[in-house]
């Protein structure tokens, strides 16, 4: 595999991991604009562990997820008191603070950046990404997925149905942040050098865009969103700025025409032939014995 191709494939895998970090809170109806901060926590903590304590990279990356998830759990309680646009802005402020703190932490290089000694190659990163995707997919096949979707669709009704809305929101927020932390750890250990400036608000926004483009209704959406918008610009081979212009224009058009994202639940079921010919309640009604007439 050529260096160029490997670079792109690694970026693709890391972006996919990031996308799932954004997908979990979005699936529960939260817009997390502080993902870059959690990715930074993951990147720096894993880099510190593998540099100073000589932990093997994979173990360090696992700790990266734990670190980011723990920080998210601690801040989740006050942050999730806010909702809607306030929540988005609180997470945004959080991301900015994490970035600013790292810029001032001399122990990890501060503004000069932090070199990482250990190095992992594409197969390891791809395997980790596959594991993350598989775990999220499994998670959404359980009651968790149904509950989170219910919270996303209507908090009040979910609450009435006996779902602990708060617990699921905190869980989605913390798990998403942990995944973003793992993504940050992967990034740090492949590119061998991290700087706080990389983990800025644009990164958070881009991650959220991957998810929204792919669609939040299905687990496959974020994968597709991240893949399309990592690979498409490379294929177009345009100059960096035209690339961004095309990306932005595509986004505007897509949001206008398909506000639910590229992949929606109903469409996917239709495509895979899993669609019931009629809605479930209609099917059940048809199967019921007919009431005697008259």
């Amino acid at each position, binding site marked *: 595999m050529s260096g160029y191709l490997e670079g792109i494939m690694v970026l693709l895998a890391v972006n996919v991991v990031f996308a799932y970090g954004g997908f979990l809170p979005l699936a529960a109806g939260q*817009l997390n604009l502080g993902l870059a901060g959690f990715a930074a926590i993951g990147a720096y903590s894993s880099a510190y562990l593998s540099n100073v304590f000589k932990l093997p990279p994979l173990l360090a990356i696992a700790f990266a997820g734990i670190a980011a998830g723990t920080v998210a759990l601690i801040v989740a309680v*006050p*942050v999730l*008191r*806010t909702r*809607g*646009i*306030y929540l*988005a*802005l*609180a997470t*945004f*402020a*959080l991301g*900015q*603070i994490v*970035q*600013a*703190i790292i*810029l*001032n932490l001399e122990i990890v290089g501060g503004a000069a950046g932090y070199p990482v000694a250990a190095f992992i190659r594409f197969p390891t990163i791809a395997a980790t990404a596959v594991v993350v995707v598989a775990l999220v997919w499994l998670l959404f096949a359980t009651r968790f997925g149904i509950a989170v979707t219910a919270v996303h669709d209507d908090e009040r009704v979910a609450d009435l149905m006996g779902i602990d809305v708060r617990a699921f929101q905190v869980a989605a927020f913390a798990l998403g942040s942990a995944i973003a932390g793992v993504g940050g750890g992967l990034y740090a250990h492949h590119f061998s050098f991290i700087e706080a400036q990389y983990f800025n*608000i644009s990164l958070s*926004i881009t991650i*959220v*865009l991957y998810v*929204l483009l792919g669609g939040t209704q299905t687990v496959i959406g974020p994968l597709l969103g991240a893949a399309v918008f990592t690979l498409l610009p490379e294929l177009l081979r345009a100059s960096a*700025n*035209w690339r*961004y*212009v095309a*990306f*932005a*224009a595509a*986004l*505007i058009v897509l*949001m*206008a025409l398909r*506000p*639910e994202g590229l992949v929606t639940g109903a469409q996917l079921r239709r495509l895979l032939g899993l669609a019931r010919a009629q809605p479930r309640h209609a099917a059940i009604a048809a199967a019921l014995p007919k009431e005697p007439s008259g």
Partner: protein
Amino acid sequence: MLGSIYAMVAVALTLSIGVLRFLNFSIPGLFMIGGMTAWASLRAGLPWPLAIVAALGAGALASLVVERFTWRWMRGAQDFVPLVSSMAFLLLFEHLAVIYWGSELRTVPPLFANADWRIAGLVISVPQLAGLAASIALIWALTLVLARTRLGRGLRTIAEDSDTALLLGVEINRIVPVVFLISGLFAALAGVIFALNYRQVQPFMGEMVGLKGISAMIVGGMGSVWGSIAGGLIIGLVEVMSIGYFGADFVDIAVYGLLLLILFIRPTGLFAAAFAGQRA
């Protein structure tokens, strides 16, 4: 001084939040368009009043384009959809500006040969003073429009409930562009004042100011015009004070820390009496 620029950006943002419940992320882009157009038209040899008019026109026009593709298209979609589109517009504007004007820092020529007044040892720059006066006058005019005119009544109705407004015969598709026009003008004017005072512009100039403007809006209270102004001045003050006490590295921690604290304690902001539409 930076405080009053934050305040103007915050007013632009707060109008769109207060009336339309729409956090318009393209406003930092409009700020940049204002500043960059002022620089480009001065360089092209236009006299400065014309350059300012050109900058304001460009900002307003761009804002109307944003309206066409965000709010009008996506009314009734999920909350974050117009938000995402406006972020895309920010990206679009920035990178188009890089393509046309290049990404390097440009210097704006000074307007007046010696524009500083010295009064009892204080140095007061005339462009700063003029900018401050213009922004206060404009904001005051805006609150009058909101409170007194037929347009203001329409806006306040939309702010309360856009469906009811439609039923009552408020022409949403004619009034909403006015909101975008005004917020575009405010953002572009802030950009022009920034360009004339700091005499440096570049395509990404909007991001830092825009993010601080958002913080100012929240600190002051979303949707409240005077709250935004207070918020802008507070953010400016916190910046200056944290540079004074802790050094320049801690500015962002102080500003965003304050923002987070206010979101936790009083998410409606310090001065949120009501939405802009409901009480000017």
